[in-house]
């Protein structure tokens, strides 16, 4: 049995997937979700093999939702019009269906996945789906994180700095710290390079929060942030910072 979860904020849009799925008796629909929050919970609860995911949804979009899922299942995007997504996901998603899509197009997408699945069990690692090159449909202006069963949305301007922590990245705001399973490279690429600078192998700072650069020892420096936090700068990081600041 194959379990699927449908995540789309329009009930009618989900109903068409439900209808088309009747041609695939081996697939059962574990749950239908109205938004990304429900989606995250449903995926944790049902551990589906496949999800149908809309991109534009309340609060958190489809991309942000996927980032919150520990072991994302295979994804078929269903979206009305999203040129960025189409570009970005061309090579990564199992498929993306442009609304309104025909039954033939839908079945083609599923057949492709089913074949792929039979040939290479275990299923394709969905993490590669969201490769580090994948950009958000819009400039990343916030980061969505999970805190236990809560989901928090952090506007990027509130971030003080990011720190590498094994397989995770620690995200510091003035008051709190969040953990996110991502790489430093991911954030270095996906955050606005005019605002966020990687000043050290393990640190990325927010320039809007930078107040002072002070020498620590010979040839090493510390960045002082508005919150009073201090971040070490590597030699090359210091050079890069000077370049970005135009010093």
């Amino acid at each position, binding site marked *: 049995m194959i379990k699927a979860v449908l995540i789309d904020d*329009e*009930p*009618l849009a989900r109903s*068409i997937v439900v*209808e088309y799925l009747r041609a695939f008796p081996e697939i059962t629909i574990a749950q239908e979700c109205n938004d990304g929050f429900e989606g995250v919970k449903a995926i944790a609860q049902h551990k589906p093999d496949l999800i149908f995911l809309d991109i534009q949804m309340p*609060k958190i979009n489809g991309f942000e939702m996927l980032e919150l899922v520990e072991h994302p299942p295979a994804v078929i995007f269903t979206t*009305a019009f999203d040129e960025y997504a189409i570009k970005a996901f061309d090579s990564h998603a199992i498929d993306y269906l442009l*609304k309104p899509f025909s039954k033939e197009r839908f079945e083609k997408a599923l057949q492709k996945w089913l074949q792929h699945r039979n040939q290479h069990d275990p299923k394709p690692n969905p993490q590669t789906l969201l490769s580090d090159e994948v950009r958000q449909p819009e400039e990343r202006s916030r980061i969505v994180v999970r805190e236990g069963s809560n989901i928090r949305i952090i506007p990027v301007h509130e971030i003080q700095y990011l720190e590498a922590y094994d397989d995770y990245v620690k995200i510091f705001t003035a008051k709190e710290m969040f953990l996110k399973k991502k790489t430093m490279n991911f954030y270095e690429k996906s955050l606005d390079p005019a605002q966020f600078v990687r000043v050290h192998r393990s640190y990325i700072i927010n320039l809007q929060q930078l107040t002072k650069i002070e020498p620590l020892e010979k040839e090493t420096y510390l960045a002082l942030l508005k919150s009073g936090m201090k971040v070490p700068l590597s030699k090359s990081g210091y050079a890069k910072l000077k370049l970005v600041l135009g010093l």
Partner: protein
Amino acid sequence: MIIAALTWWLSLIIIETLALVSTFQFGITIAMADVVSLNLLIATAGYITFISLRYYQPNPKNAVYLIIWSIAMAAICTIGHHYIMIRGPFPREATYYAYLDASQLIRGLLVWLMITLIGVMSWIWFFLQDLRAGERREHDTTKLARDAELASLRQQLQPHFLFNSLNSISALAGSRPEEARKMIQQLSDFLRGTIKKDDQQLVSLQEELKHLALYLDIEKVRFGHRLRTELDQAEEAKHLLLPSLLLQPLVENAIKFGLYDTIGEITIRIKTLSVDNQLLITIENPFDPQTSQPKQGTGFGLNSVQRRLYLLYARNDLLTTRKAEDVFYTEIKIPQPA
């Protein structure tokens, strides 16, 4: 214009003839012949000058060409006149011919003055015409650009809306064909409303609200489970005027903002008022102050309405937004035609 010029010239000929007759006691025939032939020559030279200036307009730096030209024309006219008077079949009055010879130089100067005057006047005439044509062209170009911009601003239909609506129809077609047909009807009526209207056209609020209702009906098919709308309409505002298709993009923006920034049911409130001979429309949508982006709510819809209002009224203060707790307000003021 031509009649005025001819009358003027005819009176000039009569006055000049009378002056010659009374001053020098010439015979009326010879005096008339003198004046008419000279004036005909001047008129011809002036006409040639006028025509030439139509095709070549010297700039002030090349005014010297105009002077040389007028001197040459004056010389030709004077010599020509002399020739006509000597060879012409006129009474041989000795006093006249003495006068003709003696007045050669002063006559030449007079003719030159006349031709120069005609030249300068023609030059100014063409210069002003060019200037006016340039202004008209510029005005036409700006108007065309403005019209095109207005048209494109007005017709910017959100592709998301269209494709999602079509998707809903596709879903309904399978399970509830009657409703699918109804939605096709609504979508068609809405689309027809967006293309038939003229940019500059002012419509009554009542008519605009009718168009908005079509849009809201479609959105409710998609989001009926979450979307509520309330319309609070002041009776006296009903017949006030506003540019067509202004309201829908504002409401669309409010709906998107409300739907995507919150979870659960949302209510969009639209209030219309008549204040100081202005139409005042307020649109309210809920939002989440904790997570919403500072940029949000000033999305494309608002920018395009702002720009349209500027193009139509040359004012930037007609669209305003404000936040209070978890409600976002979009307000427009529409001045009423006097």
